[in-house]
């Protein structure tokens, strides 16, 4: 079905009376299905719901000890596959059996394909979501010509970018210019590794997952710096200098806010952080709102999103570090930007919003759907910010990091450390302590942020309105020679 083109009403003589045809909506698209299609879709949905519930019931009931058939948590199935494969005793090489090799390679490939296809699928649809949503924020329609509701627009964009010539500017360092689009992709993919998608469904459930995330995400600055340096362009150099300065500054508040998470949960393993939140029925965003805000805001700086998109500030330095990239190389940078926004959404969800759990609901619907929902919600917030806020200047952004976030984050770590030791001594009334801490932390955060801002001399500009005065209040219009 192709969307109707808004056509001008031929009976009206003037453009003012132009009738805009009602735009087709996705809901209307579903409502237009024939009865048969609706019935089939309904039955399929019912089967999905009932089957899902049935499996959940069996699993929760604990009637069966083995869990590999809980297909909603692929971790069990992979585990089952691995044990089956490892039982093959045929010797392959250097004393390793075929089973040993397969037991590591097959799950690894399945997991990588799973994560990459989720990410690839999102990259295909993400730019469409972003453009449509931004268009709605800006009272316009957005892409709606390629495919139904413009859904194929990202594919058309990618095809267009692939056809374009990749230019290498004169004076560019060819090797360094060639590498960054690839290098910037690697950390963006690797960071997905330790994120738990469900109880056992984690590609890389290592015990230093949080350190891994911090260190891998810091790598992309190298690629950005290479791109800016090798382009032989002042805009690119300015953009990459800004990025380096920003990333170096914002690594610290990110590290400190995650340190609070580690103190509270007592683990660097991402799945343990999630299960701590699930066990206590408490999201870390509630008990440490300051760390949550710091992480979210610093992430916008790390991934170049509004209001901190100064590294790619279009109105100032055109496209920042990827000014000179054309064709699919530019497309790769854009795709990474999109993927990083979703990744940050997933990280925020994992660290602060309970990850794949949702107060027991994760037993009834697959955990990876919950995580995907939360990550998309984070992505939606990034789009919302992009549609709303102007951009900071770089000195404002840097002073915000060094004067506000870092001192307050250090104080916050101290606060959380004290609270953790209190909890350790009063384990019998743990839940009461946590409730008290949530209330206390919210209040102390508001108080501390306000008083710190006042202490270092910040005054809200909005509280001192600067309105124009009328000429009559000034004594009327004067000739130029009477002024001054």
């Amino acid at each position, binding site marked *: 079905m192709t969307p109707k083109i808004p056509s001008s009403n031929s009976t009206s003589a003037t453009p*003012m009376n132009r009738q805009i045809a009602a735009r087709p909506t996705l809901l209307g698209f579903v409502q237009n299905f024939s009865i048969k299609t609706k019935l089939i879709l309904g039955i399929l949905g019912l089967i999905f719901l009932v089957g899902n519930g049935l499996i959940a019931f069996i699993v929760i009931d604990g009637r069966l000890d083995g869990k590999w058939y809980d297909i909603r948590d692929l971790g069990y199935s992979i585990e089952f596959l691995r044990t089956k494969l490892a039982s093959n005793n045929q010797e392959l090489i250097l004393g390793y059996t075929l089973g040993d090799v397969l037991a590591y390679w097959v799950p690894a490939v399945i997991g990588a394909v799973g994560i990459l296809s989720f990410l690839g699928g999102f990259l295909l649809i993400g730019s469409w979501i972003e453009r449509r949503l931004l268009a709605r924020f800006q*009272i316009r329609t957005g892409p709606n010509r390629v495919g139904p509701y413009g859904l194929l627009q990202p594919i058309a964009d990618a095809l267009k970018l692939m056809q374009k010539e990749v230019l290498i500017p004169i004076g560019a360092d060819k090797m360094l210019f060639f590498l960054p689009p690839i290098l910037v992709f690697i950390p963006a993919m690797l960071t997905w590794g330790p994120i738990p998608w469900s109880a056992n469904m984690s590609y890389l459930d290592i015990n230093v997952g949080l350190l891994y995330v911090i260190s891998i995400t810091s790598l992309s600055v190298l690629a950005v710096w290479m791109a800016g340096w090798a382009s032989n362009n002042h805009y690119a150099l300015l953009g990459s200098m800004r990025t380096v300065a920003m990333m170096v500054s914002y690594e610290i508040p990110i590290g400190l806010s995650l340190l609070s998470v580690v103190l509270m949960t007592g683990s660097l393993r991402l799945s343990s952080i999630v299960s701590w939140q699930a066990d206590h029925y408490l999201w870390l965003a509630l008990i440490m709102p300051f760390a949550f805000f710091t992480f979210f805001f610093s992430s916008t700086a790390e991934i170049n999103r509004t209001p901190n998109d100064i590294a790619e500030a279009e109105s100032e330095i055109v496209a920042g570090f990827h000014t000179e990239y054309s064709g699919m190389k530019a497309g790769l940078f854009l795709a990474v930007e999109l993927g990083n926004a979703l990744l940050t959404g997933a990280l925020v969800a994992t660290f602060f919003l309970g990850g794949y759990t949702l107060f027991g609901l994760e037993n009834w619907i697959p955990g990876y759907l919950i995580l995907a929902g939360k990550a998309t919600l984070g992505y939606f917030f990034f789009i919302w910010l992009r549609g709303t806020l102007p951009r900071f200047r770089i000195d404002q952004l840097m002073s915000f990091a060094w004067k506000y976030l870092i001192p307050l984050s250090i104080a916050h770590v101290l606060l959380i450390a004290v609270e953790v030791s209190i909890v350790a001594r009063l384990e019998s009334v743990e839940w009461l302590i946590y409730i008290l801490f949530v209330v206390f932390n919210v209040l102390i955060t508001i108080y501390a942020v306000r008083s710190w801002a006042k202490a270092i001399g910040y005054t809200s500009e909005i509280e001192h309105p600067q309105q*124009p005065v*009328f000429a009559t209040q000034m004594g009327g219009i*004067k000739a130029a020679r009477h002024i001054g």
Partner: protein
Amino acid sequence: MTTSEPYVLNIGPQHPSTHGVFRIRVVMDGEKIQDIDMIVGYLHRSMEKLAEERTYTQNIPFTDRADYLAAMSGNLGLCLAAERLAAVEVPDRASHLRVIFAELQRIASHAMANGTLVSDAGAWQTPLLYMFREREKILDLFEMTCGARLTTNYMRIGGVAFEPPPEFWPALDELVNELPERIDEYAQLVQENEIFVARTRNIGIISPEDAINGSLVGPALRGSGVPWDLRKTEPYCGYDNFEFEVPVGTVGDVYDRFMVRLEETRQSTKIIQQAIDSISDGPHKTDIPLALRPEPGEVYGRVEGPRGELGFYLVSDGSPAPYRFHIRAPSLINLSLLRDMARGASLSDAVVTLGSIDIVVGEIDR
């Protein structure tokens, strides 16, 4: 051992925030601007020379293309100058129509100016597109009256070209009724935004003395605290019959210029309302000869355009074509102070300052 040296950054002629084909050579030390050099002329079309070969009426389309965001004001300026040169009387109804269209054009132009200023500050076009709602409706009104949205060519020497169609008036009423509300909404969207305020307050300050010495005009002059508006000081088209205020800034920074423009759109709405109420029946133009031959002499006619004093200097030698045709473009004059404002500022501030001056390159290069 490391040394640092300033480098040259070329902003433009193709750049997202130069508002046209305008080039700035910036000598920068890191993020700080040491010196700037403005290079104009990429859109030069030799308008003033071409005008010497055409009759006064044939020259009106040139004014559309000089300041293409305020075609009506340009039309009005040339027509006023030519009318004064040839001593042509303008009917009362035509004057009212001129006021209505010039003020509509002012609202449309200020919407564009303020919207692009916020875009330059980094808001990803949202405020711009919100303000474009009103601009679209105004351009629709232009279209139904004279068939064109941008290059209107509507004013004529001795009046206006066409009587607006009957459906124009209800549409105008509707627009004028909803405008104040929409302007408030827009002001709320931007004015209460801490980031926007932090980006524009105390940036690109021009003192009143500098503004006068630099011959600034329009919102840039009024933003610096100089109460000067040609509609009050030298009323034309019966502006002295309308009640309106001239907003004047207090600090002279980017934010003041923004707020002055916003307030001017409110005042323009008031003027349009009064013009609608007081418009009388009658002819919409006086007939003039096809080839108007003014007495030999010279005249300088000026109007308060959206960007400031838009002047037309015409010299007649008694022939149908002007002997000399000169446009005093407010954008060009206002731009001359960019160097003082941008020196020592950061690149981000310079871009916002340039946005606040509201240049139209078609007018600068002519």
